[in-house]
């Protein structure tokens, strides 16, 4: 029964047009894509943008394709497309893992990857997934395009490298051999925000972990990139003990708060378990891909 404050609305017909509108309307203008985060925040008056620039007509931003050794995902690609993509399932099954437990079909039919990343809610799943698979994002503004790695993407709670006059247009996932990835999440009920979630990607060659990425949801002010656990794993042979040790580091390195989702000790425990499980499954998937 909540209603948003009055706002202006326009439909963009091109990315450049959307950027021009953002520049023209100033910092109180917002891009709206799926709207499943922004609209509830507007209804609760947590967000009060003066203008919305609707980019849902920009079908050129909706794609998942392989190009130049990367998988490239248009920012307007819906959750449901990520869930059903065979290309992603083959190279990064972590996406299907996460999409299966993101909200419900109604949300997945509308919500987009670009919107999820730009919302940058610390409890959001895809930010952890993209952190784990070492994604890069393409940000376009008046001055042109730039490519930013996930390590530089989150600059604070709900804050990203996407500036006031910018539009995130694409997510790029570098393809490397021997990869496996997985997402583990526990929520209070089906479709909820995570109590905690862990995304892991490993790249294995000759029985050794050549690279690894781990991202955590909902246990800090932003998505957490577990660099210390990654350093431990890199160069090692995958094993249960090793993954358990990485889990212990994860439990130590996250910074959850106590809330209705659970007390701090429980969340740390959960992060340890989920990180361990995500690594185990990611490694098993890497091994089966090698075979």
């Amino acid at each position: 029964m909540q209603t948003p404050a009055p706002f202006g609305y326009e439909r963009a017909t091109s990315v450049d047009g959307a950027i021009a509108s953002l520049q023209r309307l100033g910092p109180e203008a917002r891009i709206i894509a799926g709207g499943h985060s922004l609209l509830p925040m507007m209804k609760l008056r947590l967000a009060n943008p003066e203008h919305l620039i609707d980019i849902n007509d920009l079908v050129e931003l909706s794609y998942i394709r392989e190009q130049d050794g990367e998988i490239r995902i248009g920012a307007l690609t819906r959750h449901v497309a990520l869930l059903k993509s065979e290309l992603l399932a083959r190279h990064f099954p972590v996406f299907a893992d996460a999409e299966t437990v993101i909200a419900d079909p109604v949300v997945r039919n509308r919500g987009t990857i670009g919107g999820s990343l730009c919302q940058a809610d610390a409890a959001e799943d895809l930010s952890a997934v993209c952190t784990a698979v070492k994604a890069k994002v393409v940000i376009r503004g008046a001055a042109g395009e730039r490519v930013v790695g996930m390590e530089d993407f989150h600059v604070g709670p709900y804050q990203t490298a996407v500036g006031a006059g910018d539009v995130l247009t694409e997510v790029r996932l570098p393809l490397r051999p021997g990869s496996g990835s997985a997402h583990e999440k526990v929520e209070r009920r089906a479709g909820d925000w995570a109590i905690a979630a862990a995304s892991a990607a490993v790249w294995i060659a000759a029985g050794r972990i050549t690279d690894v990425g781990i991202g955590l949801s909902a246990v800090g002010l932003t998505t957490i990139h577990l660099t210390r656990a990654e350093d431990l794993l890199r160069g090692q042979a995958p094993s249960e003990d090793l993954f358990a040790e990485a889990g212990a580091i994860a439990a130590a390195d996250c910074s959850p708060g106590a809330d209705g989702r659970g007390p701090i000790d429980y969340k740390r425990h959960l992060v340890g378990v989920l990180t361990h499980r995500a690594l185990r499954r990611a490694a098993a998937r890497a091994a089966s891909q090698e075979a």
Partner: protein
Amino acid sequence: MTRLVKTVTEMEGRFEEKWVLVEDDGLVSWEAEAALRHVGHPTPRLTGPQRVSGAARYTVDVALPGMLHAAVLRSPVAHGRVTALQVAAAEAIAGVRAVLTPASELGFQQRSGPLHDEPLYAGAPLAVVAADTLAAAREACRALAPSIEPLPFTVDIETAWQEQRFDGDLHEEARGDVEAALAAAAVRVELVVSTPGQLQTPIEPHAAVAWWKPDELVCFIATQGMFDARAELAKRFDLPPERVRVITEYVGGGFGGKQNAGFEALIAAELSRRTGRPVRLVLDRHGEQLDGGCRPATRQTVRLGATADGMLTAIDAEALVEFGMSGWRAVTTPALTLYRCADVRGIEANLRLELRRGNAFRAPAVMEGITALEQAIDELAIETGLDPLELRRRNFADRDQSADLPYTSNSLLWCYDRAAELAGWPDRDRWREPQADGLLRGMGCAAQIWWGGGGPPSHASCRLGGDGVAQVVVGVQDIGTGTLTAARMVAAEELGLPLDRVTVRGGDTAPAIYGPVAGGSQTTPSVMPAVRGAAAAVRRKLLALAGDVFEAEPDDLVVDDGRIRSRDGGLDEPYTAVTAKLGQASIDGSGNRGPNPDGYRANTFGCQIARVAVDPGTGSVRVEGIWAAHDIGRVINPLGASSQVEGGILQGMAYALSEQRVIDRTTGVPVNATMDDYKVPTMMDTPPIVVAFAPLPDTLLNTVGAKGLGEPPIIPTAAAIANAFRHATGRRAAALPLTRARVLEAIA
């Protein structure tokens, strides 16, 4: 013949002897083997298309010309004194038409005023504003800017217990000598269990639209009892009841929390009286979760004594209740009735806290009691090494020991057997073997007892028009249970008409045909016999007229499938061959629920089995299946009945796993009074549910053989889940719901 007879009526275990008007309809209850054409056959609900298409008009949808919108200012503190309200500032806001505060002189009488200058719980109404728009009303509420002097509060049961803050007296009911029996018992178990505060969380919040007209007060109310609402409005405003009309076309869930006229209708009526305009008062979600009511939290101790072979010799149940309903004590009732036992005691203390007082919530108190008792019985099964169902069978009570009366029917033993068969209970230990997915699995069971026999008064009318279509009017609203669909089936059965030639109307007090509040699982066993009686009266008149038309003996004629036939097969004419001759006239009949049988207690029974999977790493508990067998006498509509069971089980599962009113102890304020943070399960959390009903109509109870079903299915679910958790993990959590942190603590 019309008579006034004295009969015992029951509502949620409160028995009352009263005079009721009875017209003897000469009907005998349909037998178990009766070949029925509609009753007992799955039938989609009458109003399904309207509900899913949005055409159904709920109270929140009512919009009248010139209607004002009301908003409520609520206490932000658990206890305080309002020292100032900026009334002038609120009244100055454009569009504001009326501001009510505790100082306002109201046009109705209520023992404790509806608006509080000393709020005793967070969310208590302090003031109300009516304005041209909801936005203006809300702005005016903000402008009231209450100054509140905080006062001390207690919101935890432990402190209240230590301070002996009782609400009313301790309630004790006993037979025999429980202490001596416990001391002498070969086997003893003691269990302390805490249960959560649970919110009804109807999708349609409490709502009313009132219109004070010169000659009539019309109120659209989201209520479970439109006649109770009418009586309350008439009494409070000192109006003749016939000058109050309550309309309740659809209700978006009540679960016990929407009784009478309530705060919303009284205030809306008062605002309408003052302004001369219709007034709409709909709780916002936060208001609903703060002030819609709740099932109060409890802490219970159950002690059992038994012989080595599991015969119960002592049951002692103690319950502390977090500010439950005034004067309502039934948490320990199941301990006194569910099992055969000579030495029994139940003690309940209702503790006064600065919390919203509990109100009725689907199987109020009894569900809380069963949740503790059935876990204790499970412990006794473990202690004696008996199969938990076998233990329950051995202690079967074939009569109500508290009242020392037999039951009208009791198929509990059938329920045990059927649930066990459906769930694969005999093999339950195989679920405890190591599982490939690393989860811990187990199965648990729990039994259920509840009243639900219904009773008089309940009336219905039936009118058959020239087109051969029957119109039934009942005095109840359909709160989503399919009551009107069941009424249609019963009338069609008795009239020998296809379903599409019977219409049913309810939800309006204007026809002055009385029906009871939808509570206590009494609607079906109270209303359906009245419907059958009304339809039978019409059938008899129709056949008498058919005798005139066809020159036949009415006793030789029967109705079936919209036709009038002679028993010898010589005559086979459509209804309309008679009714078309009526012109504008109609055949009218009325019916009523007869008295309850003397010397019996009418109760429902059931058993549910749950299977759970516990993740020992994360503490997640997933219910993988529920098998439910209930004895509710004759099932009128199996489709509606199974839906009712599924809904009850979901609410019971939520009580075990996720739903809990959480109070911040430092502020006394509920922290999860939103639907985002208050975890009602979704369809994706719903396990497969298998439902069975005992095939035995209660022919002693009433002329359709039905008992009620609103409450029974919610009662045993949480205990069955807790027992399954025990079976899976070998541990029992001291408190529900089984949150993940709590689970890990329990299995550590």
